[in-house]
């Protein structure tokens, strides 16, 4: 009763890219399920940033990028079903889908889950205080402005200094919203120079090493209190904008037997993008929040190619070997390797992230034998790429060591 060769869940950059590649490689029946009314995923509401430079040879903004993706997808003969939300992924390539027509069970030879990532809510951050309106994430702010012309506040405090935080700041400023301060828990801004100079240029105070100690107001926010050491300071404002601290939208895995990795909160995958279930693959920001739209697009393409190759063979049966790591590394993707010689790897490199700034030697060992090392000063917000050596897939123990030296 298979309905397709491949079902892709999620029509953001990664899902569309995977679909385009699968079609290009001659896979006939590729179904793309997207729960929103349009393709584009998280790029749709971001009205300012340069998406699409590498993918389409020119710059597209926000919704236009989504439309460009949709055009490419239609042209490539993808079976696009928007307004279709997947409620469960199950063994044997079965997915449960709901749409305005009701419930449906679909089955395919392979499933690709590319559902992206979102910013952590106020609850998930365990923030203290009252629960007034006006404590929202960048995603909600940008969607409010871009799709509905609604401005949820005028003078918010911005929490966070990641890349997206500056995107949030820019969004505020272009819509007549004047943030009263930008605050950060870490001792220094997370985004790189020169972005971190931007708030100062705009005359917006940047407070680092502070924690939110209270949120006051009903029904709307009227004050956010921050604490640094023993001292507190009250910031009069009418909203709190939560930026960054992305987490994968991985409910489909969390609620299945496949589960998620504690390190990434996304599914564990191998060098092909394959999860613990050999028929289910994943890619894009669900793997590890968060990368740019361009990165998600390229990753989608690579996983799409690995799936096209996988379809030509019988499903993989080799058991996965976990990739392990020392603190202060926070995550490694892929976190599984399968002993397989199929050449079409989706991940030519390991992607690593550090939990905090650290100096020292990062080493990769295979069965205790060192195959790669690098000394450096490592920063938490940077992606670290380590080539994935072909022989790694034959090892029993794959481990990243870190020897800290000051």
């Amino acid at each position, binding site marked *: 009763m298979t309905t397709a060769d491949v079902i892709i869940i999620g029509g953001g950059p990664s899902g569309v890219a995977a679909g385009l590649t699968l079609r290009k490689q001659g896979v006939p029946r590729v179904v793309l399920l997207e*729960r929103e*009314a349009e393709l584009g995923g998280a790029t749709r*509401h971001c009205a300012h940033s340069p998406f699409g430079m590498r993918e389409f040879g020119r710059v597209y903004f926000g919704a236009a990028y989504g439309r460009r993706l949709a055009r490419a997808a239609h042209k490539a003969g993808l079976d696009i079903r928007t*307004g279709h*939300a997947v*409620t469960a992924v199950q063994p044997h390539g079965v997915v449960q889908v*709901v749409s*305005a*027509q*009701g*419930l449906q069970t679909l089955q395919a030879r392979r499933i690709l889950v590319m559902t992206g990532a*979102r*910013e952590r*809510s*106020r*609850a*998930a951050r*365990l*923030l*203290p*205080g*009252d*629960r007034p*309106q*006006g404590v*929202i*994430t960048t*995603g*909600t702010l940008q*969607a*409010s*402005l871009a*799709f*509905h*012309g*609604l*401005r*949820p*506040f*005028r003078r918010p405090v911005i929490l966070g200094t990641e890349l997206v935080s500056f995107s949030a700041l820019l969004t505020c400023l272009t*819509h*007549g919203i*004047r943030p009263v301060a930008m605050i950060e828990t870490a001792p220094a801004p997370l985004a790189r120079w020169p972005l971190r100079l931007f708030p100062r240029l705009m005359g917006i105070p940047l407070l680092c090493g502070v924690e939110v100690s*209270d*949120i006051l107001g*009903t*029904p*709307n926010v009227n004050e956010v209190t921050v604490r640094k050491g023993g001292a507190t300071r009250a910031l009069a404002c*009418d*909203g709190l904008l939560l930026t960054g601290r992305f*987490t994968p*939208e991985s*409910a489909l895995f*969390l*609620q299945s037997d496949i589960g*998620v990795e*504690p390190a990434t*909160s996304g599914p564990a995958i191998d060098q092909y993008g394959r999860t613990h279930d050999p028929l289910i693959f994943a890619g894009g920001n669900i793997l590890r929040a968060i990368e740019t739209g361009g990165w998600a697009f390229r990753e989608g393409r690579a996983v799409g190619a690995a799936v096209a190759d996988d379809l030509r063979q019988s499903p993989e049966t080799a058991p996965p070997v976990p990739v392990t790591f020392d603190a202060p590394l926070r995550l490694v993707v892929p976190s599984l390797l399968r002993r397989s010689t199929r050449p079409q790897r989706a991940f030519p490199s390991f992607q690593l992230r550090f939990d905090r700034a650290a100096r020292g030697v990062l080493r990769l060992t295979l069965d205790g034998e060192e195959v790669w090392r690098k000394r450096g000063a490592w920063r938490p917000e940077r992606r670290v790429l380590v080539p994935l050596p072909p022989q790694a897939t034959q090892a029993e123990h794959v481990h990243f060591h870190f020897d800290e030296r000051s």
Partner: protein
Amino acid sequence: MSNPVPHESSPDGFYDVAIIGAGVVGCAVARRFALAGARVVLIEKGTDILSGASKANSAILHTGFDAPPDSLELELVRKGREEYLSIHRELGLSLVRTGALVCAWSAGEHESLHGIEQQAHANGVQAVRPLSAAQARALVPALSSRLVAALEVEGEHVIDPWSAPLAYVTQAMALGATVLRATELLHGTFDGTWTLQTSTGTLRAGAVINCAGLYGDRVDRCLELPERFEIRPRKGQFVVLDKAAFRHVPRIILPVPTAITKGIVICPTAFGNVLIGPTAEEQPDRTRASLETDTLEALLQRGAELLPILRTMPVSATYAGLRPATEQKAYRVYSAPAQRAITLGGIRSTGLSAALGLAAHALHLYERFGTPLTPPPGIPDIRVPNLTETEERDWQRADHGEIICHCERVTRREIEAALASPLPPGDPGGFKRRTRAGMGRCQGFYCGARVAEMTQGCFSNPPPAATGSQGDTP
């Protein structure tokens, strides 16, 4: 804002009873009196019903197994629960028959289980049985191996704590009751009948029933009734875990209670989540139920100690509620026949369960005032929409339009129906309680903007700048 839906107000502007406070107790009282044929007005100072204690609780329909023996609380919890069980189907209210395990984590606690069992029997709750740790873990495999023993209480159930009072008040309205929101009782005088001054005008009523929860003592004072009790708010904080946790917590996990509190509960919800909480923190402030990061972390820690798998579960939501406790443990229920006033005060931690019992009790007290009521000829059929995962939801039916909130699978049709209902939400909190939109794991990241657009102009307290992004730019 007065109720936007026209209803039959009494011809002479006179009500048989004025009920102060639309918490779960006030809503239940309104229903009971309307069913008895009284002309009812329900006055609520918040912009929606359930603005006080009733908006944030553990949602357990208690049996009373651990209530003080021979107390009014025990009697009314039992009666309230019985009535809920008999009416929930016809009102469209869910009931999740989870049962509870009182868990002993030490030899000392194990010893107390026997006493709890005895008390349950004495309280008329027969369906309790002692379990070995192995038996308990067969029922809830996620329980930590540190468990010593448990007591199963079959009759502890979980309900939707917001749809139930909504159903009560909707039925009262269908029988002609008037609901005035954003209307605060300021003062009342009695000269054979009551003249009630409110923030939106003056009313006259034959009797008053104080159901003001956290303000019960103050409303008694407004009515010039004797000072009989003092509210001492007791805060309870909660964390709500992702729906993925639900299958690991098929029963309510209760601790061995102490003298002051039922303790930290790990509880499945009717919406398919898992709660950890509440704390019990005395505070003077009646207005703020604020969260503290350290406390929330401690709750998560506690959950993970008792059910280790919960450590891996993401947090969906956090909230806190204030219990209308007093200087005594008992309910503070008083009747003043000379002034035709009834006070249902200090309904501290079992009001959701006891509300229907309290309502019947209030009617009984009212009957002694000697003004007979004539029941209406028929009882209108009302049903509230199902929001729980135990019954069919709208998204599972065809033609629902589209899903707006994906985490909670709330359809456009459900949202439109809530906004067009006899008592539409008065504020964003009330909207969430009626639809669940935005209450799921993403807390509005995906649907927040869409929901803001769909509800634009519907509430009396819009966000500070919800009037569009064009125009007066600073």
